[in-house]
């Protein structure tokens, strides 16, 4: 905002109003301060005002306490990331001020809680400091015994004033949020909001108003990736799920537990991860394709049963919301280090499908695609999302639910004969007959993890093992031929192609835009279909001198990140190299650009 060329003065009265196209606001406090809800309100307001929005948050892996931030970027134009640096920093405590001032743009505004923060005299010139005793004034406004609870809503009022936000709409959102609770709660929240909105920010020389965004055809919805994925599972027609609580997957299981009864579906909380995946496979075998999911260590525990579903050729949806690993690792940080276990985390040759959604919106559509692939190819499909997508909020066009929602009730039509593992099926694609299906020949199949013949009966024949292994592989190769190639963002030929997957899409696109503006020849693409990859990808790679695979994981023993290693194995092309980091945070645009430059330098020397 402060360095935005689009900033222009339109009103000369005091305080003057400047029009901005976008703003990045970072709120820093502790986890119990409710700063996530300030961000949530801002994001929802942006969505309703037809603006684009993206958020970023960190939460400590503790129940209460510990530093937490919420960053929201609101724009009238396209918003690809939550922003490298903030225009406005709102620190609630001294530690928030000290730890986050470095993320503020030069000339940016620090709107600090003067009840707790003592600004650094050396920084007074570099940033505009505006103090407000947020905690004290909240207590004054609300009174009673709530102490400074509600200061988040007070702070929201301050931000609303500063950005000339639609106060009436925000009041509406606050009322909606507390709907169903005691009316005193809503009244208290609105009181705090008004106190903040009306607070005389005497040192505030100007307020900012967003440019009118371009009108959109459809309503926008605002939610995080976990919600989008959960609702996508419902739209896909899934009516059974099983899981075990683990961060950050738990949100999805809570959503499904809450929503499934409306569709006469069930979600079961299990005794452990193994029971959860087993139960989901049981339901799938019963003809109702089911979902399970987990994060981190939970994915390791599910491995054996997923391998069974590969062998027995039973459809299954497994959601992996990746977090920092290995082991308990960094439960509330982002990492893209489960790609290998998703693709190869089974003993034996056990090919399965892995798809990584690239945005919050994509989480919704990926869920439907995954269910349809699982059913058609009778295979487990792993949806590989990550903590960053799971928790960030984006605005996107209202999905056409009437067209998208599907009924996948089991087909129990009687049949004369049934071979569950028919080797003569085109491309090896077969589907099992769920129980309840009458087979007139009286010859019923067994579904099994033992190597088997075409009827599912155990077979130790070397030829049968070769044929069945090939069957399980070739059906996924057929899928690879059917998949659409990823779209290249930027020209299809040039010097550098950046390849990313999952939550890095926005950072890579914004980096590409910036680099191209600076005259560099860079394009990027996002790999959604990780395993199998779409056939024909090599034609895209041929258009570039360098291919850099940017990932949130380690370069590994041999110098390549997990997707990078897979692509090198597939294409055997030395121009594919990796750009990796393991700090547990999303890629900032400037970090991507810096790594690209240094990688190009390394390759030259």
């Amino acid at each position, binding site marked *: 905002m402060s360095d935005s060329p689009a900033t222009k003065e339109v009103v000369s009265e005091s305080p003057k109003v400047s029009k901005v196209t976008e703003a990045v606001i970072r709120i820093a406090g502790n986890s119990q301060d409710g700063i996530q809800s300030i961000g949530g309100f801002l994001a929802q307001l942006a969505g309703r005002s037809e603006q684009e929005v993206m958020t970023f948050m960190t939460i400590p892996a503790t129940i209460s306490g510990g530093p937490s931030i919420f960053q929201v970027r609101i724009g009238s134009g396209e918003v690809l990331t939550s922003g490298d640096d903030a225009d406005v920093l709102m620190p609630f405590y001294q530690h928030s001020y000290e730890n986050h001032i470095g993320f503020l743009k030069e000339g940016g505004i620090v709107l600090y809680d003067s009840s707790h923060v003592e600004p650094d005299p050396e920084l007074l010139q570099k940033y505009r400091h505006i103090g407000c005793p947020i905690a004290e004034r909240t207590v004054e406004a609300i009174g009673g015994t709530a102490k400074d609870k509600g200061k988040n809503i007070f702070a929201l009022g301050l931000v609303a004033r500063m950005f000339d936000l639609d106060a009436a709409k925000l009041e509406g959102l606050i009322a909606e949020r507390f709907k169903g609770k005691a009316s005193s709660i809503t009244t208290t929240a609105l009181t705090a909001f008004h106190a903040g909105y009306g607070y005389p920010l005497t040192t505030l020389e100007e307020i900012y108003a967003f440019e009118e965004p371009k009108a959109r055809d459809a309503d926008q919805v605002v939610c995080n990736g976990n919600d989008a994925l959960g609702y996508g599972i419902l739209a896909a027609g899934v009516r059974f799920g099983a899981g075990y609580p683990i961060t950050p997957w738990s949100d999805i299981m809570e959503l499904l537990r809450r929503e499934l009864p409306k569709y006469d579906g069930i979600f079961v909380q299990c005794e452990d991860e193994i029971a959860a995946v087993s139960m989901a496979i049981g339901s799938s075998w019963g003809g109702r394709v089911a979902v399970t999911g987990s994060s981190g260590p939970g994915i390791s525990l599910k491995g054996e049963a997923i391998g069974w579903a590969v062998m027995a050729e039973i459809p299954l949806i497994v959601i992996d919301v990746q977090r920092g690993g290995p082991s308990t690792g960094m439960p509330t940080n982002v990492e893209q280090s489960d790609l290998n276990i998703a693709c190869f985390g089974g003993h034996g040759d056990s090919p399965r499908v892995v798809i990584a959604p690239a945005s919050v919106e994509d989480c919704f559509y990926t869920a439907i695609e995954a269910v349809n692939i699982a059913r058609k190819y009778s295979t487990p499909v792993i949806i590989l999302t990550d903590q960053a997508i799971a928790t960030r909020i984006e605005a996107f066009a209202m999905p056409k639910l009437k067209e998208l929602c599907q009924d996948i009730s089991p087909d129990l039509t009687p049949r004369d004969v049934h071979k569950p593992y028919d080797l003569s099926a085109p491309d090896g694609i077969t589907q099992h007959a*769920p129980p309840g299906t009458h087979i007139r020949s009286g010859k019923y199949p067994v579904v099994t993890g033992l190597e088997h013949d075409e009827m599912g009966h155990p077979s130790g024949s070397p030829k049968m093992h070769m044929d069945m292994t090939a069957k399980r592989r070739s059906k996924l190769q057929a899928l690879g031929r059917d998949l659409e190639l990823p779209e290249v963002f930027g020209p299809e030929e040039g010097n550098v192609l950046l390849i990313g997957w999952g939550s890095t899409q926005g950072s890579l696109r914004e980096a590409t835009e910036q680099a191209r503006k600076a005259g560099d020849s860079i394009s990027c693409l996002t790999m959604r279909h990780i395993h199998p990859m779409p056939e024909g990808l090599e034609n895209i790679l041929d258009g570039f001198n360098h291919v850099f695979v940017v990932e949130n994981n380690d370069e590994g023993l041999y110098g390549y990140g997990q997707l990078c290693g897979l692509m090198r194995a597939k294409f055997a092309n030395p121009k594919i190299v990796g750009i990796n980091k393991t700090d547990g945070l999303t890629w900032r645009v400037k970090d991507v650009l810096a790594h690209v430059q240094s990688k190009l330098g390394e390759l030259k020397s």
Partner: protein
Amino acid sequence: MSATAEITREPLKKKDLAADHPTWCPGCGDFSVLALYFKLIQNRGIHHEKIATVAGIGCSSRFPYFVQGHGVHFIHGRALPFATGIAMSRQDLDLFVFGGDGDAFSIGGNHFTHCARKNVNLTYVVMDNSVYGLTKKQTSPTSPIGFKSKTDMWGAVDQPINPLKQAIAGGATFVARTTHTNPKHLLAMMEAAMDHNGFGFIECLSECTEFYNGAFDASNPRKGGEFLEVPEDHDPTNETEAYDLAGQPFPGHFGIVYQVDRPSKQDREKTINAKFMEKTKDLEAHQILQQNFDKMK
């Protein structure tokens, strides 16, 4: 389904039910469980497509291959959660789970407790031979202290699990004990478990003639032992009495040790769903979902 054509079908005969020839050793107790499963299906007039036979891993878990009907041979120890998935999604099937003592009480021990506590409506028959047979004689969780095996060459040292006590403590609502040497009793227990609404658990002594020959002779009158049924004055709804009965030294008593009435997992979920469905029954799925999306506008 074209139900009218299916209704008039002949009841199944034994030959319609037999699939692969069992791979069990001659004299194995599991043969009689299989034979009585066929009998049960015939007695109840169940048709092929409604049979769902599920098992984990072990000698006894080969069961589904020997039955004509929909069958599953799942991974070691996880037959119960797999079956729970079927039970919750497809309440129209006759669901039977078979397994051994290793599958049930060792690798699957956690699931046994939780399936009991959830009171999932299914029948679970554990063929207890007190030895790992498929892997050729290692100690099992029900092997008695002193039992010599390839992993306890000086005799087993760990306290064996008492399956009945475990089931009662876990919250099972139907706990019975039977033996392969008394077919009439075994069939009666299977029928009672099937008729029970909830988790019907049967511990069936099933001798491994190969690796633990004579293990249960003391309960077999033909081998000079004594087969004692649960006393007539036993109150199966009394948990303390049931626990005492379960703790008797071998050969103990056979029959329904414990049985109480508690809503099954399916019943409880149905109650929840009915409340929600009352509001959504006239809506299409996309209309229900639209309500959520409208809140996110």
